[in-house]
């Protein structure tokens, strides 16, 4: 066996970290590990803000005919909650995790373009600050945007949203969009050009595979949103006519542009989560992933199909039967490659030596919750069901099962799995399990009942409701659940603070995992690896630990 040289940026491209100390070292950093942590911390701050907005909504809705919030405030709050959670929390958390982990997992020194990496992060953060600055605009038409996260025209036009809120929304999203786009280019280039010797594309850890496909989706659809945003900005600031029906424009065009971006965006938010699950479940089942090729290939199928399903958000527009049927069929078809993955993960656990660590608990609960979200999604693919339930709380329940029950639970699994690598200390398992059960119970309490609430006819985005039979109790249950969830977040923060101070020292490879990030110290040195272990298969550290039973030998023995 011979050790491999480390591909990495040349001396000119790597920066001199010694020149700065303290805060300045972080602000001026182009190191993927520091930027990854900054991504995660920045997104966590926005997560807390978005969470507080959610609690304000749930307080308002706890009882009928409530006047805790004014209708105007409520509209601003649900707009900012959705925009924040999607653009400033979920995407940056996933991009941040990939920024930290991808170079380590492929045995590289850093990202392909370290300075671009810093640009992506800062542009994204300033986009977020720009968005929140809208709260500071005053006057009768001031305040944050109040148009919902998908900002339908003509509500976003100056005739209906006269204040500057929507302008801040557009400019903030353009900043965030550019940041995400450049991060996608950087991650893809890193994966395609910076791999250690032996790390063929068919040996990539699945998290890296998913990041590669996510990068492709980002590069494809982010510019579509950006184009839509500049058209809307032209409408608002230059008096153009794109989406203004009164002067011949088309409000439906905005819906097409937004959802042509918006639905692939859903997969941008969920594919890296699949990647995390595909790392966590094999390690804690003591078995390699079942059907590696199928997991990778079905991801490509999802990416392709995700671009052909956008108009299932638009069944209520009345686009015609042919149109509806095409998008309904594609939407049902995309459930197939997604469902296959569920079987891959389940089969990986089957007959494995399963260790129910906190990370694994989150991963298993991801399987259950994401499946529920997937099933309600298939229900929506049937156009008549969509007509019945569109814009009701059933929709709210559905996408929270996908984005919280899916992505957020996977992210928690990733945090518990990789925290030791990032910090050098273990996250406490007892606090972890408390957090897990609070999250699991709080989440289901909040959102399960909303399926029923939607079927009972409660529309989303209303600031209050009359005391109709059942609505009162169901809304109260949902609000109680939201506070249990908030408590769980508090427990996570306590756990992180305690564990950073006095957590168990992790060592290089606390979980006996197999991918390259566990071959270096925790936390890794600035150069990541002194030597990258040889890569002769998908589990280099397994091969290293079992020279008599390497994956290659096992495969040959199995025929």
């Amino acid at each position, binding site marked *: 066996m011979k050790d491999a040289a480390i591909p990495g940026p040349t001396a000119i491209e790597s920066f001199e970290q010694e020149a700065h100390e303290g805060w300045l070292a972080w602000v001026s950093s182009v190191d993927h590990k520091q930027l990854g942590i900054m991504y995660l911390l920045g997104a966590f701050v926005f997560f807390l803000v978005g969470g507080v907005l959610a609690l304000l909504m749930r307080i308002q809705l706890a009882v009928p005919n409530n006047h805790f919030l004014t209708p105007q405030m409520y509209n601003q709050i649900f707009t900012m909650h959705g925009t924040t959670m999607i653009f400033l929390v979920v995407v940056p958390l996933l991009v941040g995790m990939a920024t930290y982990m991808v170079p380590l997992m492929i045995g590289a020194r850093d990202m*392909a*373009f370290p300075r*671009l990496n810093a640009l992506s992060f800062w542009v994204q953060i300033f986009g977020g600050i720009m968005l929140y600055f809208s709260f500071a605009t005053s006057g009768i038409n001031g305040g944050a945007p109040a148009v919902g996260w998908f900002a339908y025209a003509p509500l976003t036009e100056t005739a209906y949203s006269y204040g500057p809120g929507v302008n801040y929304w557009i400019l903030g999203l353009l900043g965030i969009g550019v940041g995400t*786009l450049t991060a*996608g*280019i*950087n991650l*893809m*280039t890193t994966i*395609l*050009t*910076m*791999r250690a010797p032996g790390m063929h594309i068919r040996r990539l850890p699945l998290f890296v595979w998913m990041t590669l496909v996510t990068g492709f989706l980002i*590069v*494809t*659809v*982010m*510019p*579509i949103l*950006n*184009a*839509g945003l*500049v*058209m809307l900005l*032209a*409408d608002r600031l*230059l*008096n*153009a*006519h*794109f989406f203004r029906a009164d*002067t*011949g*424009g*088309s409000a439906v*065009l905005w819906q097409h*542009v937004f959802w*042509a971006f918006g639905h692939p965006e859903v997969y941008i938010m969920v594919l890296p989560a699949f990647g995390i699950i595909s790392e966590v479940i094999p390690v804690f089942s003591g078995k390699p992933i079942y059907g590696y090729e199928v997991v990778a290939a079905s991801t490509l199928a999802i990416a392709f199909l995700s671009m052909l399903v956008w108009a299932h958000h638009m069944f209520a527009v009345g686009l015609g039967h042919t149109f509806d049927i095409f998008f309904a069929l594609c939407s049902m078809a995309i459930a197939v490659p997604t469902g296959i993955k569920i079987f891959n993960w389940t089969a990986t656990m089957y007959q494995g030596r399963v260790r129910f660590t906190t990370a694994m608990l989150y991963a298993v609960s991801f399987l259950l919750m994401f499946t529920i979200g997937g099933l309600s999604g298939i229900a929506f693919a049937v156009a008549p069901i969509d007509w019945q339930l569109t814009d009701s709380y059933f929709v709210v329940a559905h996408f929270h099962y996908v984005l919280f029950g899916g992505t957020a639970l996977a992210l928690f699994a990733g945090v518990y799995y990789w925290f030791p690598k990032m910090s050098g200390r273990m996250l406490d398992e007892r606090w972890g399990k408390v957090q897990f059960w609070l999250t699991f119970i709080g989440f289901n309490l909040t959102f399960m009942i909303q399926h029923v609430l939607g079927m009972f006819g409660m529309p989303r985005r209303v600031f209050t409701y009359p005391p109709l039979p059942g609505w009162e109790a169901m809304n109260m249950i949902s609000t109680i659940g939201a506070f249990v969830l908030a408590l769980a977040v508090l427990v996570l923060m306590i756990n992180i603070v305690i564990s950073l101070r006095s957590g168990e020292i992790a060592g290089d490879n606390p979980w006996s995992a197999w991918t390259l990030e566990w071959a270096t110290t925790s936390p890794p040195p600035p150069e990541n690896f002194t030597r990258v272990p040889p890569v002769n298969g998908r589990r280099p550290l397994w091969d290293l630990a079992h020279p008599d039973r390497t994956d290659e030998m096992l495969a040959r023995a199995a025929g």
Partner: protein
Amino acid sequence: MPDKNKLGVGLFLFSEAWFFVTLLIAYAYFHSLPANGPSAGNSLNVLHTLIFSICLFASSATIHMAARSFERGERTGVTGWLSVTVALGAIFLFGQAREYIGLFAHGVTISTNLFGSTFFTLTGFHGLHVFGGLIALSTLLGVTMDGQLGEVKPSGFESIAIYWHFVDAVWVVIFAVVYLWPLVA
């Protein structure tokens, strides 16, 4: 493994292509609807724009010549062809500015009607890309005039050339859709 600079620029241009496709779809959609007032058919001078377009198309050939000289290490060839490329790009922008001023004089602006909105947004963003390319080309020209060719990375040179070809190719599509479509219809 592929060169990271060229791949990075390639991915960037792939995303740019989607940006322009979206603006083009908006243009084509509204153009296909019946409308009053200024339109591509009654407001644009195809012949004038064709002359300036030929300058931009020709600059794709001259940047190619510059790249070939660069490969052979001929400094005068590189600076010469780059200068011609920058000049051709600048002439195209001059032509676009002239066209805009003419349209403004006839009261056609971005807020006039949907033709104005879509036309100025689409061609304006293309013009911005030409302008950005001119900055990159001028920087390259300055560096090669000043020092040795060895100071420029081959993949850096090629990346800028790829970008310039892309800007050119986008104009081929825009020219066909915006200027030639009314002639066919």
